[in-house]
């Protein structure tokens, strides 16, 4: 992959990130919103690794470890929350979760 400049990777990363953000905004199913967030996290990971490769640093790769861990913890807790919300409200539609306000 030596011939491809890093700019391409960055643009691909931001494209993925935008798609993820779009998913968060236009979907109503919380689980799919969640998956879109995972996609955004992965876009960031992707850019981490690309930069690490470009800047000759190992820290970018190490950071991916931590992002993965955070993603795992987030998925575990987030999905647990979704399950317990579903128990009470029988829905996973984000626009029906609006109790979190005045």
């Amino acid at each position, binding site marked *: *992959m*030596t*011939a*491809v*400049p*890093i*700019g*391409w*990777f*960055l*643009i*691909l990363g*931001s*494209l*993925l*990130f*935008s*798609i*993820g*953000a*779009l*998913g968060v*905004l*236009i979907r*109503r*199913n919380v*689980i*799919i919103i969640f*998956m879109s967030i*995972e*996609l955004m996290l*992965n876009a960031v*990971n*992707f850019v981490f*690794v*690309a930069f*690490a*490769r470009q800047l*000759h*640093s*190992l*820290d970018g*790769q*190490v950071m991916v*470890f931590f992002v*993965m861990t955070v*993603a*795992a*913890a987030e*998925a*575990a*807790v987030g999905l*647990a*929350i*979704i*399950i*317990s919300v*579903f*128990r009470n409200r029988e829905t*996973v539609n984000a626009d029906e979760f609006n109790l979190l306000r005045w």
Partner: protein
Amino acid sequence: MNTGVFVLLATLLVVAALGVVLARSPIRSALSLVVALFFLAVFFLLLDAQLIAALQVIVYAGAIMVLFLFVIMLLNLQEHPAEMARAGLRFLAGTLASLFLLATIYFTNRSGISNAQGMGAIPDGFDSTAQIAERLFTQHLFAFELTSLLLLVAIISAVVLAKKKLA
């Protein structure tokens, strides 16, 4: 060939990512995400980050997405007729996301790194598990130990939240 491979894989990746966002059925969405993650792993491999590539598949595809699938099946989520947001919000979201993308492309262009001649040879030790491990377990020791606490909290909260009997 390199550029060709990049474009091919990037296209597949973007298609899979769009699949996540646009698929009607949650399970297809999840599978699209698995495919996208798999292609990301291939990208990591081509960026000489073998360890990350393997971990990407093990952690994301092999563990996190399984959990997503389980939840989808557990809650028996089928296609939902009113799945997408209202048209107005959709339009707004699309505009904002495009603006965001354009802004990042603008910055990437302006910074000049996109004009560089590719990435060159593998940095010394970049693909060596031992060196990454050394970094991880010496310089990032504290973050590593904190990770365990994060996971502990995740376990406990997941158990507390999910332990009640499912109706």
